[in-house]
Structures are given as structure tokens and as C-alpha cells.
């Protein structure tokens, strides 16, 4: 099986597909980047192309660059948190493999979001409930695939996988808190330096 066929094979066989991908070494970084680009595109297209009967986005507030950066940063943080905590529980996946696994698992969610965007243009508000169900099912499929990916690559059993998911969420919270802390510390340092500078300038005038 070619490397680019693996994501679709995994959607059809979520339970044994990951074991097969691991032992045949079919995880490809390039394919994961293609999926990443599809993910970013979907987040951006959602603002302009969803049907207007659902919600009117403020066109002046759409920012492609920040959307792309937030998406990539969110994925990196989740992968880093998972990688850090899986070391504690003796998981055996590398960071590269965790990144690829997350992106391959996101594929059903991305596909259902594209279907949502297309369908939202031909569906009325009351029928919109059904396409929301579609997106929810895509998310559920993603969750199933992530659990199986962890069981295959980290070699956890089911309970340990759930625990590692909870720890990942906790880890994301900790990482975000640390980032906010660092930013506010930088702000404090910058404001101290600038206050000193302005004091000096005004005293010697």
C-alpha cells in the first residue's frame, strides 16, 4: 500500500489499521502536512463560505494568518503535551509519530467539515441540525481513531489510553498557563525598561 493511501485505509479499518501502519512503517510526514494544509484551509473557508442563513461572520475580522498560526500552534501544543506525559506512562511513540497520528486521526473531522461547508449552502436553518450531527459524527470518529492510534503506537491498554488523554488535556492547560505567564513576564520586563528609559530622558531634559 502506498503511503498516501494509509489515511483512507485507517478510516475504513480504525481498529487494526494502526498496527498495520506501524509494522509496515507507513507513517509519512509529507502526507501529514497535506492534511494540515487541508485543515487550515477548512478553518479559513468556514468564515466566508458557510451558508448565510446560519451565521454572519464579520468579514473585517477574518485573519488568515492568525487562523493558520493558531491551528498549527494548537496542534503542536497538544502533541507536545501528549509526548511529555506519555513518557511518564512509558509510551513508546516519538514526537514525529504523535504528530502524524494526530493529523491522520483528524481526517474524518476535516472531511465532515468540508461536507458541512458545502451542504450549508443548500440547507435551511431547521434542516441545519442534521449537518451539525454529521460534524459531530466526524468528531466521534476522530476520537475513536486517536484512541486506537495510542493503543497501537504507545502500546497502552484501553484504560491507560483514556488516562493519557486526560493527562494530555491537563498538559495543554499547563502549557497555556506557562505561555501566558511568560508573556506577562516579558511585558513586565519591557515596561520596567521603558519606564527607566523615560525617567532618564525626562530628568536630563
Amino acid at each position, binding site marked *: 500500500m502506498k503511503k498516501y493511501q494509509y489515511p483512507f485505509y485507517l478510516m475504513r479499518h480504525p481498529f487494526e489499521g494502526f498496527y498495520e501502519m506501524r509494522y509496515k512503517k507507513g507513517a509519512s510526514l509529507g502526507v501529514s502536512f497535506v492534511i494540515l494544509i487541508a485543515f487550515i484551509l477548512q478553518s479559513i473557508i468556514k468564515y466566508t463560505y458557510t*451558508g*448565510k*442563513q*446560519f*451565521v*454572519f461572520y*464579520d468579514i473585517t475580522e477574518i485573519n488568515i494568518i492568525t487562523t493558520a498560526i493558531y491551528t498549527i500552534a494548537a496542534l503542536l501544543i497538544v502533541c507536545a503535551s501528549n509526548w511529555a506525559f506519555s513518557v511518564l506512562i512509558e509510551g513508546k511513540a516519538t514526537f514525529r509519530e504523535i504528530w502524524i497520528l494526530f493529523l491522520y486521526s483528524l481526517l474524518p473531522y476535516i472531511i465532515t467539515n468540508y461536507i458541512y461547508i458545502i451542504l450549508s449552502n*443548500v440547507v*435551511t*436553518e431547521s434542516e441545519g441540525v442534521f449537518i451539525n450531527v454529521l460534524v459531530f459524527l466526524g468528531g466521534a470518529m476522530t476520537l475513536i481513531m486517536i484512541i486506537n492510534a495510542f493503543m497501537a503506537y504507545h502500546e497502552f491498554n484501553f484504560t491507560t489510553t483514556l488516562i493519557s488523554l486526560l493527562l494530555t488535556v491537563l498538559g495543554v492547560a499547563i502549557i497555556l498557563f506557562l505561555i501566558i505567564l511568560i508573556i506577562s513576564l516579558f511585558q513586565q520586563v519591557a515596561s520596567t525598561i521603558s519606564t527607566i528609559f523615560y525617567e532618564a530622558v525626562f530628568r536630563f531634559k
Partner: protein
Amino acid sequence: MPLSKRIIAVFAMSALMLIFCCSNVSAESYVYNSYKETVNAPDVYDVLEKITGSDIGCGTLKAPEDMFVTDDGTVYIADTGNKRIVITDSNLVLIKTIEDFVMDEKPAKIKEITGVFVDTEGTIYFTDAKGGYIYRCDENGNIDLRLKQPENGVFDEETLFVPEEVIVDRSGNIYVKCTGIYQGSVLYDKNGDFQGFFGADNVEETQSIVSDYFWKSLMNDTQKEQTARVVPPEIRAFDIDDEDFIYTVTNSGTTAGSTKIAMDKFRKLNPKGSDVLINKMPREAKMALERDGLALAFVDVNITSDDYLLAVDKNFGRIFEFDRDMNLITAFGSIGNEYGTFQNPIAIESFNNNIYVLDKTTCSVTVFGLTEFGTTIHEAINIYNSGYYEKAIDPWLEVAARSSNYELAFVGLGNAYMNIHDYEKAIHYFELGRDSEGYNDAFIELRAQFLRKNLVYIVGGIVIIAGGIYVALHFIRRRKKA
């Protein structure tokens, strides 16, 4: 540039500058758009004049508390500090003042004139908050009815009877708003017999109130007496229209730990006391108004003869105007010293498309009139509400031409086109007005039209494609077998 052209350019520039010099002093008006922002819009109302007591001709007013304007334009001002009622015409020129009141052939001792109401025959009803009475008199001050606190046990030493405002419906029933009474307005019939309470508000069921209810069900009686009671908020002001619907406004405040939101503040009570107000404001604009409404404190409300709801707030001196469907027409006014600003607005009334605002601290009445922009908006709304949908299109187009921030114009155009079944134009204007519900309605019709015309081709196309795929697969399988 040749000299003649330069001279013309200079004159043109100075003419342009003159336009800015003679603009009217008016407060900046705004509306909410569907991005939850306040955006500037042209003024709907302009200041006409600001009249103090000396301009009326009756001497300065002293801390006036209420004002009422009848359907024929007679203005009644409750001049509380001077213990009199000042009656003027709609141009605020003095007709008479009532200073001496006579009851049963003897001069009556009125402690204070707090609220005033006049019915269609000219009978004056006023409240005396300090004395705890409500009086009914004619225009010469002859009192023929005096109401005091009802004796049903609600009012005792702890709960004082402080009647502040009064309204009367077409049958002569008297509704009195008393301070601190959460059961609603005190209702008397036209003979003065106490009928009960009318129109209590509902307690908003927030999480804290529901959890309180749960804990109270486990407590015994002595414990229950010591916990705080959960009561609905009292109304701040009310007004009655000519179909006997009562419009009330309530202040947001804390009721047992919850904060009421702004749009609940307005209620339209039918004669049974239930709230029948429908709110068609777009969701985002409504949320923005609710968010800002927490800082507002409405003091008076008025329903105009064209069914527009006016409300004045004392924290920012803001006047809001809503139409029948609770769409915000305009918001203007502020606290200040110029014409068009207030120090302590306390009453708002309307007559003939003019707004009268009574200011307690400056003891003056500010009169606002509709601008050209405002007249066009009112015209468009009135024509649409009368059912002449197609005739409302031109006024709305004019409003939209003057201000693209005014989303109500686009929504109005969309609604007008929907009613004459021109769905393409309707959907275009709903998109401009960012109204997703209207867009949905127009979209349903357009989709139905499209399917009706093209269903044959769509189904035929699907059948042909499916048949073609089947045949192609058949041939591919045959080739694979060979």
C-alpha cells in the same frame, strides 16, 4: 489653474465650510449593528427648544417629578417643589396652573404632587407620595375621589404605601405604582374600590435561585424565615396606550444574586397581566443592547400614538426609541449642559412626533423633533405596518441611501420584498442587513422555486449518471475477466 477657476474653488470650499458651521447642536445618535457594535447613524431627532419655567410664564419650576401630555397636546407638569400642576399647550405656552385644591367644599391639604395622569376627558389623576393618597380632580382643582392605602394587610408598619405614578385605562380603572411593592401595581376600579395587584414580574430562574429552592425544601420553618426571600423586581415606570396595553420598564439590579438583563426590562402587559412583547431584533444586536443595558437605569417609558416605545435612562441621559417589534430605531442624548443633554431626566412624553423630556435638576422641558431622516424612517415603518408593503420600499431605499450603517433599512427592504414575493431582491437585502432569519425565510422560498422548475432535470440527470456508472462498471468487469 486659471484665476476664475481658483476663485470658484475658494467660494466652493468656503460654502462647504459654512455647512458645518450651521449644523444643529445635537447629541450623537447611534444604533447597534449585528456585529454587536454601536455604529453612528444620522440623527433621528433634533433639539427644537429647551423651555424653563420662566419661558412658560409660570415662574421657575422646582424639582418637577412628572409630566403628562394628552392626545391633543396639552402638557401637564407636576411641579412638585411648588405643589402645583402647570398646564400648558404643546408649544409650552402657559394655559393655567392649579395651586389650590378643593375637596368636599373645603381646601384640601396636598403634601406633594408626585405623579400625574390625565385621561381623554381631561380628568386629572395625581399621586401624593408623602401623604400616601391618590386624587382625582378636574381642571379647576375640585377633587372628587381620594384613594388611600388598601386594607388587605399588605401595607403595614413595615411596608409603607408610597404611590409614585398612576395610569388609568379607558374604563376608569386606576393603576398605581408604589415604591417597594413587588406584587405589581395596586389596582382600583373607577369608584375607588381596591381590586388587587396587577402585573407582577416574573422571577428569573437562574441557577442560584433554583439551588436556593432546593435547599429551602430541606429546611424547617424557623430556618426558612431567616433566609432571604426571592421576589421579582418592582417596575420603575409605566405607560398605557389607547388599546389599554400597559408598557412597563424595570431596572436591572440584583435579585437574590442574579442580574436581570436589559431587554426583559420592557414588558407589554395585556389586561390579564401577561407579557405579550414580541422582540424581532436581530440576535446579535439584542445581545449587544443587553450587554450595555446593564449600565442603564431607565426612569420613564412612553408609548407614542404611532406605537413607538420611548425610554429615557438617567445614568447616561440616553433616550431609546423602539418600534412595534422592538427594533431599535435610535439612541441619543447624554448628560451635560448643552441643548439636547440633561442633568437628571425624569419623565418622557410624546406628542405629534415630538419628544418632551422633563429634567428635574434644571427644571426644564427639552423638546425634540423628527429630522428628515427620522421622518423617512417613521414613514417607512408606518406604511409597512399598515400593510402597504410595496409602498414601503421607496422610503427604506432613501434611508439606506443616507446611511449604510442603518441595518434596519435593509431588513425592512428584505421584509417588504418578501411580502411581494420578490425573493431574489429579498435575499439580496437580507444579506446586506445581515439578518440570518430573514435570509433563511427567503432562501427556503428560492430553493423551493428552483426545485420546482428543475426537479425533472435533476432527477433525470441522476438517473442517467447512475445508469452510466452501472454500464461502465459492467464493461470494466467484463474486460477484467478477459
